[in-house]
């Protein structure tokens, strides 16, 4: 439970908000690389942290991210012409390069004028199938986060994004919540036993115990937590699933080959990026790619029909109270637990049904929600740090993201679960900077 003020502080990310300022200190995914498929293709609208931008790929393939409104008189550059290494406003023909340099101002005779002004442009990187942007102060650009999947070729990863019509924290909550899996996703989990997908087999193991013990700890990157389950039919050994939350909005799933970026579009809409990767198997190619996406409801057809894509997220028939979140209650009477399409639609429905920004003054967290409480704490810490002029979690000194993992494994009795993630530096006390490696910690 949070006070109203804390909830607002944690959830609001628009310009000038404390959490918004914190978010702006990190590299954030802005859109998929595939949304700008070739040089001089159509520009794309990007809304990020409540601000509007235009993204375009110039004739050399370089991506630019500029304020949407032309800096001359405010027409939208989304209508602009992308040509000859720049984007040109159709109104008076001002032309901008990816870095905001003004290349041409046909209605100004002074040739030096264009050197005196600049369009507001933001640093952009392209990695892991994503176009990343940094919206914060120029002198504070952090090191680019090198996730294990950012260097992999497209054939070895799957990128997908669901647009969810609620605040980002609600979406993150679903990712650090082991205890909903066997309940909310009951139907999909049953299908996992029969599926040949690696993903399905991994999550299938969780069917054994719907009430795992949860332990969470602060780390230098945010926090990690473990869901601890007794191995089925055995008296010793613990099945451990560790997830890592990386500030401000990333999660490494215990499956070990799945990461999420939960990026606020604005206070009540979220881009929910999924990245699967496999250094050996070519999962980014067909049929593996489509099989994976279909299984969890992230294929284009499912995203479109449940208003989870940019094309359809404003559709009048999007899941909402009036249409009971598109739930099929007939299916519920004949054995389907939720009457919702698949994992993605189930997660989205419970998140959206809680309201645009969930009221956390009226919740009752239980022992199963230990990681949720930890999430609030870390996010509020980021917001307060920035408000007080300090650096938010994980930036100074920079965390080596390549050491951050989600993992599943079994530990024998007497061995700490933290030993499965030896690269996670834990913060033993939130007040002091004493840091210990997971491997030094006490037994479970």
């Amino acid at each position, binding site marked *: 439970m949070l006070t109203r003020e804390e909830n607002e502080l944690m959830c609001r990310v628009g310009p000038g908000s404390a959490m918004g300022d914190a978010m702006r200190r990190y590299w954030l995914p802005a859109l998929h690389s595939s949304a700008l498929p070739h040089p001089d293709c*159509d520009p794309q*609208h990007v809304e990020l942290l409540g601000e509007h931008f235009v993204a375009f790929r110039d004739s050399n393939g370089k991506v630019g991210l500029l*304020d949407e*409104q032309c*800096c*001359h*008189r*405010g*027409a*939208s550059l*989304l*209508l602009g*012409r992308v040509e000859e290494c720049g984007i040109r406003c*159709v*109104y*008076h*023909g001002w032309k901008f390069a990816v870095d905001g340099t003004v290349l041409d*101002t*046909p*209605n*100004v*005779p002074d040739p030096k*004028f264009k050197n005196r*002004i600049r369009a507001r442009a933001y640093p952009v990187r392209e990695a892991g199938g994503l176009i990343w942007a940094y919206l914060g102060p120029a002198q504070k650009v952090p090191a680019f986060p090198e996730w294990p999947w950012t260097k992999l070729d497209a054939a070895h990863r799957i990128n997908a994004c669901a647009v969810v019509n609620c605040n980002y924290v609600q979406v993150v909550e679903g990712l650090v919540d082991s205890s909903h899996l066997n309940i909310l996703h009951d139907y999909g989990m049953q299908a996992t036993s029969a599926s040949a997908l690696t993903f399905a087999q991994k999550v299938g193991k969780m069917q054994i115990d719907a009430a795992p013990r949860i332990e969470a700890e602060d780390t230098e990157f945010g926090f990690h937590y473990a869901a601890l389950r007794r191995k089925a039919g055995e008296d010793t050994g613990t099945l451990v699933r560790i997830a890592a939350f990386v500030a401000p909005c990333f999660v490494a799933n215990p499956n070990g080959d799945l990461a999420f970026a939960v990026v606020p579009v604005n206070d009540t809409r979220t881009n929910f990026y999924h990245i699967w990767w496999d250094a050996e198997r070519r999962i980014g190619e067909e049929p593996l790619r489509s099989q994976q996406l279909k299984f969890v409801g992230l294929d284009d057809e499912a995203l479109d029909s449940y208003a989870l894509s940019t094309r359809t997220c*404003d559709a009048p028939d999007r899941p909402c109270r009036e249409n009971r979140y598109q739930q099929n209650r007939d299916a519920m009477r004949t054995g389907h637990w939720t009457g919702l399409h698949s994992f993605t639609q189930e997660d989205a429905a419970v998140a959206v049904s809680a309201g645009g920004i969930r009221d956390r003054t009226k919740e009752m967290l239980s022992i199963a929600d230990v990681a949720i409480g930890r999430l609030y704490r870390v996010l509020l810490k980021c917001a307060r740090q920035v408000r007080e002029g300090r650096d938010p979690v994980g930036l100074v000194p920079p965390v080596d993201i390549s050491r951050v993992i989600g993992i599943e494994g079994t530990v024998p009795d007497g061995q700490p679960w933290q030993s499965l993630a030896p690269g996670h530096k834990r913060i033993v006390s939130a007040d002091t900077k004493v840091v210990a490696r997971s491997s030094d910690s006490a037994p479970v």
Partner: protein
Amino acid sequence: MGAVFRRFWLPVCTSEQLPKNDSDPLRVRLVGENLVAFRDTKGAVGLLQEACPHRGASLALGRVEECGIRCLYHGWKFGVDGRVQETPNYSGPAFKDRVKARSYPVREEGGLIWAYLGPQEKQPPFTRYAFMNAAQQNRTVIRINVNANYLQLVEGGFDSSHVGILHSNVARPGWLDATFTPNPDRLNPAVLAVEDNDPKLILEQTDFGFNYAAFRGVGKANGSEQLNVRVVPYIMPSTRIIPAPTTLFTVFETPADDENTSTFIVIHGSEPIDRAKNLALLGLDDSRFYSEKDCVYRATWSDQLGQDRSRMRESWTGLGGIEQEDAAMSLSMGPIVDRTQEHLVPADRAIVEIRRMLLRSAADVEKGGDPVAMPGDITDVGAPDAFVPANARDSWRDLAPNHWRTGT
């Protein structure tokens, strides 16, 4: 600024929107007020507050009959002057003389219904425009309701330097092969643009507001450098006259409210006007975005404001006509553009002058004074577009001798 607009006669709707006596009443939103316009049995037009003064039901649902409009709810009936003619649920005979529906002075001229919404004692003489003298068949009136603040549309319409860029398709049809080919179309105001997107502007204040004269180099003729000059009047509070080869476009940007504008375009000339052809050149013949029935311009971001990017190889904007292009610019800025973020340049001097005039008027009216300029009879104000020798550019004033005449 609402007080400034209320000091002028404003266009309310087209005459066509109240086509005959006792025709259906029309809901009107004007400078933030909800009104109802109707034409009574004798053809007189009334403009009343929309809410019935009895208990607030909308008179737009009312019955128009027997020289008045009757509220459906309890049958109260009002004349075009707001006078209460009947109150069937109250028999006290003197009562109806004691109440009145709020009504406004109305005129009908030049294919438009006009109203004055300001203080009675400040009512100015009715403004007469050249198009009011044109024969009916030589004039046509088009109304477009756009979801943007009036000033965005005003600034777009009074902006000489966008014509050769935004309207490249019609202003310089050769843009694709980089040669300037004049457009032979005799109807289109954009065809008068020439291949110089950096016009020199001269601004001068007049009785009715101000003029700009935009000069563009066009090369030599008869051995001397020639300039194209286009004189465009800005008529307070938000009107402009734009020349086309055989016609004039008088354009009113009338605020419906802070985020919506009724644009009235009156096209007139000395010959019959082909309305359909004019609608086509404006891009208003496309039923996806515009219907003459309700005059609403419908393009939104869900259809990329009407832009078809697959056509942008051969079409500069991918938009279908000059009004589509102008409306897309204003719509793309959002309902009220954030002017703290702009970078104005010398080509925007006319925009700056408009803002200065409007802001000064607002300040003066607030202090009990008058707007900085009031148009009276301006039937002789036009918008000349011609060529002058570069060494005698001052001769442009002879093209518009009546623009400075002052009554004082």
